[in-house]
């Protein structure tokens, strides 16, 4: 078996200059929040370490994660990471199909037992023995368990794999289940978002290659460097939020001025992601910048958190469309009415007793 190629080998073979390679290393270091001292470390890792094999599985999903991934801002990032992955297994992106593709999967598992990273896009539906998602002639959940068994670590790409996303939204007929609830014995890194930002995806892979370990994860298992802050915390419209200047209606004067979308139901204040710093499509824009509130796509169960356009969430548990304010106000009005009635009866009772006492004293 010939020695495994390094990233650098692959890059050079693709005609990428060393200068461009170093640029990629600095860009990645800053994206990961690392100091300049880490640039040579990344370069060194890329030059010397054999490429980490990655198996990329697709379950119940829409492929938006892959679409995002191949649009990574720095062209090099795409080349580097894609060549790494397509060489091993990704049924959507690889040239092989059918039995050849499935054989590639088995070969990769066999060859790199315990050393490959399993990237999962989408999730397995568990209802009806997993029959709602069949890949390669078998329920996806079986393929997932099979590939996960010998994986070093698992990356849950996107909201589907991390939290379930739309297919797991109420009432979740297929019982779509996030990866970490099916595979419980492997380190899992969640990279939520619908889709996640391309630079976040490549950043996570680069970090794992460079330092040979998972990046620091937060309480929910997301890489802290990208999901440590809310969209709101770094939003360029934040000064308008603090000033109390809001868009009151779509296309009003305030919307044209670029005021805060808080009142339009923007979920920026409750959503952990890096959109307001890294942005999308080579840093061109992100939803809030184009005038629409954040829908909170990287949050757990964002489809079931009421309308994208309400500040205060509708609580459908109460059967009718209602929210905390409507329920609270109804209850408060009820109690207020009861108090008033009670006070009136109390006064009447007291007056009645007084009359009776007066009468008995007179008698």
């Amino acid at each position, binding site marked *: 078996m010939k020695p495994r190629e390094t990233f650098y080998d692959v890059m050079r073979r693709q005609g990428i200059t060393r200068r461009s390679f170093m640029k990629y290393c600095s860009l990645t270091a800053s994206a990961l929040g690392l100091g300049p001292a880490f640039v040579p470390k990344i370069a060194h890792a890329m030059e010397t370490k054999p490429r980490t094999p990655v198996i990329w599985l697709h379950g119940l999903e829409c492929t938006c994660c892959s679409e995002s991934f191949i649009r990574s801002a720095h062209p090099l990032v795409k080349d580097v990471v894609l060549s790494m992955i397509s060489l091993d297994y990704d049924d959507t992106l690889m040239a092989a199909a059918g039995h050849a593709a499935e054989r590639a999967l088995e070969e990769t598992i066999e060859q790199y037992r315990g050393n490959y990273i399993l990237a999962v896009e989408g999730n397995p539906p568990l209802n009806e023995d997993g029959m709602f998602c069949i890949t390669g002639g078998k329920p996806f959940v079986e393929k997932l368990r099979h590939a996960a068994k010998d994986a070093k670590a698992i990356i849950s790409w996107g909201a589907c794999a991390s939290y379930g996303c739309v297919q797991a939204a109420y009432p979740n007929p297929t019982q779509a289940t996030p990866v970490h609830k099916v595979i419980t014995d492997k380190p899992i890194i969640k990279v939520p978002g619908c889709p996640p930002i391309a630079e976040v995806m490549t950043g996570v892979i680069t970090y794992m290659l460079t330092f040979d370990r998972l990046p620091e994860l*937060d*309480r*929910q298992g997301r890489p*802290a460097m990208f999901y*440590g*802050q*809310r969209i709101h*915390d770094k939003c360029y419209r934040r*000064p*308008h*939020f*603090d*000033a*109390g*200047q*809001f868009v*009151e209606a779509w296309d009003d004067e*305030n919307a044209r001025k670029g*005021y805060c979308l*808080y*009142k339009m139901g923007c*979920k920026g*204040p*409750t*959503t*952990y992601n890096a959109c307001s710093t890294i942005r999308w499509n080579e840093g061109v824009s992100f939803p809030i910048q184009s005038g629409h509130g954040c829908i*909170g796509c990287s*949050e*757990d*169960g*964002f489809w079931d*958190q*009421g309308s994208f356009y309400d*500040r*205060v*969430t509708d*609580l459908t548990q109460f059967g009718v469309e209602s*929210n*905390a*304010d409507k*329920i*609270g*106000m109804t*209850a*408060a009005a009820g*109690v*207020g009415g009861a*108090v008033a009635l*009670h*006070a009136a*009866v*109390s006064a009447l*009772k*007291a007056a009645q007793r007084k009359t009776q006492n007066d009468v008995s004293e007179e008698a």
Partner: protein
Amino acid sequence: MAHDTIHVPNPDVEPLKSARLAGDATETDVESIRRRTSVFVYEWPVRLWHWVNALAILVLAVTGWFIGSPPPSMQIGEATHQFVFGYIRFAHFAAGLILTVGFLGRIYWAFVGNHHARQLFRLPLWNRRWWSEVFYELRWYLFLEREPKKYVGHNPLAQAAMFLFMTLGLSFMIVTGLALYGEGLGAGSWADRLFGWVIPLAGGSQALHSIHHLGMWAIVIFVMIHVYAAIREDIMSRQSMVSTMISGHRTFKDDRPE
């Protein structure tokens, strides 16, 4: 002397002599004085906590409402020079932290204060008699009893309500509130480290906002009932209510034993 009084009278002493001579106090007033008693119930830290807490809740409810439904946009100056919503949120956080510190102080006082200071934190749920008194008080509120009983501290029904809405309710609002506060302070901050675990437990930040919001309404409803009951009991019960939370003294209006 009547045998149904709880007082030991001092018949030789003439009370309110000068007031009587000046035409202020009447015979009935003197008779009333001989029958009334008072007990010192609430020490100053308890009373101070009550009013600081009340004020904090008022500020929290009003600013909390505005945080959920912001006031109409204002154009006082450029965003750089205007901080309207920032001040509303500041008031909310400041009042929330004052309430938290006050609540911790109140818990401390439950240990070192008199035994009335412990009523808020300990329900005698296994005491049959206590339950029967709860139902007695309930019947009084439903106009099924002619007359309420005398209580030194809280009546059992009020004690249960206090425990539910204040002891548990405030704890809930403090924990959920500080978890949300930790989001603003950032990952790794004290609030995030102590209470950040609440966010995934609630099912995300937006869901936590919703239940914190519902908690506000629970407390608003409690306040309405509390204020009404305090005023009503001040008038209709056999003891002082509102002034007790100012002076600390519970005054009884009659001298019957029960």
